[in-house]
């Protein structure tokens, strides 16, 4: 009756493969190297297994659940590294099969290991593994420890599935699944009203973006008759799609990326999402999921390249978001919110890079950012773990107490500020060069200012948390356990060295590899004027210096909290003068500007969103009011409905088309 033959055939095939594999002598396996790329589809399955296992027996395992999660993600990580290494020498591997056939439509599913996907697999599984390990210490004692690990598994599965999808429909499916994982994890502390609200907000707001993605994707399908990336690119190259259509679909898809990557104006969910546990913020809202928007644009890069307007949109939104979020970050007092706005701003950087046709720069910064931002979040988590507050006004002087966390946090801060020698410096430089060479001098300038602000607010954070005197009431401040510090250490090393895979000095290995065989993606390295690097260095150091003068030095003054500053007693008049000068001009301006943007954020962006929801809610209210419960009304409404239809028909003679 039901066409089971196909199902049996698939089942039989799987059995045969497993059987053959088991019977093959071990040395043949070793020689063959287990065909790593062909088995890359196994990578997402480990965390899925972890999720299913913990769902079933998590309650009994209690805190031992962590080992299941850690082991499974370790398996994914090892596999990802093998796949990455193999991808250095082997060509792209693509596997697909017919998934759904309706009439003339054929939809496929499968997986693809190209350079970008291999790199993403590595980043995601690495950060996920480290966060799994870190959480063992951070979540210790939580009643729903196993649930947390189960959700982490679900998320990791979805994220890994996302980055090996060979077609946009499959990407979309995992894209939504990732959102679900994020929803569950943000709302993990469900007894907190804010967490619940944030979870819902994150889910709904990214959904708004997803609608754009869905429509864009279906329009593409309509135009090219395929969801496959390769087919779409072929059609774009062959000129089978009109320019307007390319621009329209690219922008619609970019709207999806805006939602997921927290770009203006759909960014407000991301800072709120900080209500989730800190390891979640590190994994989802810094390193992986929010970068999915950037990944999507990168994965569809040839489509974007085909439309100047679309590229320009990406660049402008990215550039604006970069400075917009950075300026809001200047006045935040919650440690995680500062980092959240910083993430939004850095994602804006990546978008700016992609929009300026700097494919390599965008992907490169995605990678380095994943490392140093995850490090910063984990270190912030370690601080919160120690002092039980997120308000930086109540911290201070923690350098001596957190001997391990503090230097690591400093490394992350230096990296994100773009101090020469660290990873962030190289990737940010690439972006600035790309923006300049891409012919966006205004956006370049914005990015440069944003770089200054980044250095400033990150060091403001650092000085307020780690230097000066302790302003909090905590007494038992202690360093975190090694399960928490070791992942941070590893990320710290990466935050320093990861930049050296692509530098103007030692060769652009990463860039050459990423663009190998895909000339359409551009060159591995864009040559830019040397002064850009100097300028980037100067603004970064200037930002740090300013932060030091305001927060590093002033924190010595006894009446720090009153904000007046005992300036007359400072040693050097000159310094005072600079302080004052900055305070009066730059800082006042920046603060004012920042408040203005904050105002836009709260009243206009949120206002529009509230307005729309308000209208919908109002309609709902009206609708339920109409529902009087009186059967006469129902009959009357129906008759009116019929009458309206008949009258319209009578008036238009039935040719209302």
């Amino acid at each position, binding site marked *: *009756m039901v066409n089971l033959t196909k199902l049996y055939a698939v089942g039989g095939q799987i059995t045969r493969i497993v059987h053959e594999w088991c019977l093959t002598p071990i040395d043949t396996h070793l020689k063959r190297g287990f065909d790593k790329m062909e088995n890359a589809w196994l990578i997402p399955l480990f965390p899925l297994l972890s999720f299913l296992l913990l769902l079933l027996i998590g309650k009994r395992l209690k805190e031992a659940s962590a080992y299941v999660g850690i082991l499974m993600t370790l398996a994914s990580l090892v596999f990802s590294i093998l796949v990455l290494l193999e991808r250095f020498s082997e060509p792209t591997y693509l596997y697909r099969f017919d998934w759904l056939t309706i009439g003339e439509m054929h939809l496929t599913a499968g997986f693809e290991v190209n350079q970008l996907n291999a790199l993403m697999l590595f980043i995601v599984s690495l950060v996920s593994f480290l966060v799994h390990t870190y959480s063992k210490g951070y979540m210790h004692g939580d009643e729903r420890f196993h649930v947390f690990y189960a959700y982490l598994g679900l998320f990791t599965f979805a994220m890994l599935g996302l980055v090996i999808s060979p077609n946009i429909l499959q990407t979309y499916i995992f894209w939504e699944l990732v959102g679900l994982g994020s929803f569950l994890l943000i709302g993990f502390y469900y007894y907190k009203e804010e967490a619940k609200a944030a979870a819902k907000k994150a889910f709904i707001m990214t959904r708004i973006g997803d609608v754009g993605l869905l429509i864009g994707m279906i329009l593409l399908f309509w135009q090219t008759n395929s969801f496959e990336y390769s087919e779409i690119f072929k059609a774009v190259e062959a000129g089978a799609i009109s320019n307007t259509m390319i621009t329209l679909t690219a922008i619609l898809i970019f709207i999806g990326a805006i939602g997921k990557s927290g770009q203006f104006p759909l960014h407000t969910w991301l800072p709120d999402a900080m209500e989730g546990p800190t390891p979640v913020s590190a994994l989802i809202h810094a390193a992986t999921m929010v970068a999915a928007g950037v990944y999507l644009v990168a994965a569809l890069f040839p489509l974007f390249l085909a439309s100047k307007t679309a590229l320009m949109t990406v660049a402008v939104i990215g550039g604006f978001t970069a400075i917009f979020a950075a300026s809001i970050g200047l006045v935040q007092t919650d440690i995680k919110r500062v980092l959240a706005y910083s993430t939004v701003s850095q994602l804006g950087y990546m978008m700016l890079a992609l929009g300026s046709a700097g494919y390599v720069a965008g992907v490169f910064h995605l990678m380095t950012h994943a490392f140093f931002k995850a490090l910063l979040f984990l270190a912030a988590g370690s601080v919160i773990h120690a002092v039980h507050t997120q308000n930086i006004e109540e911290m201070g002087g923690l350098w001596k107490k957190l001997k391990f966390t503090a230097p690591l946090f400093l490394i992350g801060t230096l990296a994100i500020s773009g101090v020469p020698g660290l990873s962030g410096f190289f990737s940010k430089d690439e972006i600035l060069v790309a923006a300049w060479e891409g012919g966006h001098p205004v956006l370049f300038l914005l990015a440069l200012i944003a770089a200054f602000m980044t250095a400033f607010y990150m060091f403001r954070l650092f000085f307020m948390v780690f230097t000066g005197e302790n302003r909090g009431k905590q007494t038992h401040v202690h360093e975190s356990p090694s399960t928490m510090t070791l992942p941070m250490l590893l990320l710290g090393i990466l935050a320093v060295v990861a930049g050296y895979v692509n530098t103007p000095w030692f060769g652009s290995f990463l860039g050459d590899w990423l663009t190998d065989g895909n000339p359409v993606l551009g060159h591995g390295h864009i040559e830019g004027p040397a002064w850009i690097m100097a300028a980037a260095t100067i603004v970064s150091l200037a930002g740090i210096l300013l932060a030091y003068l305001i927060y590093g030095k002033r924190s010595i003054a006894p009446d720090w909290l009153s904000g007046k500053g005992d300036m007359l007693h400072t040693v050097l008049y000159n310094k005072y003068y600079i302080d004052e000068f900055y305070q009066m001009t730059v800082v006042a301006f920046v603060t004012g500007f920042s408040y203005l943007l904050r105002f836009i954020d709260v009243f206009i962006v949120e206002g529009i969103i509230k307005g729309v929801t308000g209208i919908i809610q109002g309609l709902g209210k009206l609708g339920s009011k109409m529902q009087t419960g009186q059967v006469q009304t129902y009959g009357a409404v129906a008759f009116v409905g019929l009458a309206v239809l008949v009258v319209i028909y009578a008036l238009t003679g039935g040719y209302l088309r």
Partner: protein
Amino acid sequence: MSLESFQQLNWSIMTPEFLILGVIAILVLMDLFMPKHMDRKMIGWIGIVAILAAMVATASMVGGPVESILHDTFRIDSFALAFKLLLLGGGALVLFLAVSYEPKDGVERYQAEFYYLFMTALLGAMLMTSSGDLITLYIGLELLSIPSYILAGIRKFHSQSNESAMKYVINGSISSAITLFGMSYVYGLTGTTNLLDMASKLATLSDSNHVYLLTLAFLMIVVGLGFKLAAAPFHMWAPDVYQGAPTPVTAFLSVVSKTAGFVIVIRILLTVFGFAATDGQGSIPILYNMQNYLAVIAAATMIIGNVVALKQTDIKRLFAYSSIAHAGYLLVAFTALTPNMFYSIWFYLLAYLLMNLGAFAIIQVVTEKAGSTKITEFAGLYRRSPVLAVSMGILLISLAGFPGTAGFIGKLNIFLGALYAEPGHYLLASIMIAATVVSYFYYFGIMTQIFFRPAADNSKFNIPFGIVVVLLVAVVGSVLFGILPNIAFDFLQNNLDIIADFFK
């Protein structure tokens, strides 16, 4: 007709109907002669077996030729078989719900009636799928409706249930009257009740007055049947009736009755009005000419269903609006009128059947235990019963049309259909997307209750066997058809050539 020719008719094609009818008769007699104190549940189980047997009988006819008896008043074509299977599947699951239904004020006294009235209504729905004639279609419709009225009011001492039945009767009668009035015009213009005869007579229609009258008939039939589908603005009975009726009855109304409504809509509108010319032979048919009216109804249904659902605090009312919204999505598929329409509608109804009946199974368990149908009764379900909570979570994301579930594939089909149609229905497709986004709010509102709220009491649930069966089928089906939708599509495409059969 002589007895001999009567006997020579191919009665075997009615096997599923005879099976159900026969078992109903047996069950009525059993109920009559069974000792009063004996448990009537057995009757329900016999009913389930009968429905499953009817399903096997129907399935065995799959792949056969088009057959009809009694001048097409009863016909077996691929359309009939495909939708009959859906109805029987839905009917069996509803009976599983019914045997597990034990509300506090009790329906034990009428429990046996409960079962055979369900089956009678199901028989009506089955007849509708197989009718090629207005008379049998109408009889099928009434045979479905009248037992439904009684079922809605079967909790005799429950005032809400009484109110529900009363409203249903009145609204149902209005709708029947309007439908019948519309049908009378069609009969008056053609002089026949056979749908295919009508089609061939109307295909050359060119008198503009006749076209005008026929279009009025079209509107009246659409409105009359719109009641059955609970399409806006003829949906207003649904929330009140759904809320008051016993939960299995609500499940029946929202799934089986709605499926039957789509069956009759497609049968009449497509056969008669899909051919009725507007200006001589070869001109554009009335159905295509009136697509915009259908589009407006579809859009209004989606918007009203989803938007009003936001404000609901009662789970059954919420699901009433949700089912209104789903009718809207289905109407989008019908409005688009693509060659894939049958597949899209059939698959969506299948997905809807699974996810909605599964959700009602959980609603039944939770509301029965709590004695109230407030949405807040779902608070902390995750702590009280992780199995129920996770199942409900899966069913809700499927209802919301989340990727990886059958609901997503169903919506994707409809959406693609709306864009692929010539001319494309972009506005309708956009409204559908926007409406879907709105639906996320209330489905995830329930999810928030289940996963993120503390429970008022921590008592555990006893999940009766019937519910376990429904949940298993619903959850496994929703995920399976979400991941491997080709199982269903291949079955349909390889065995049932609906379009070719439909007009034979």
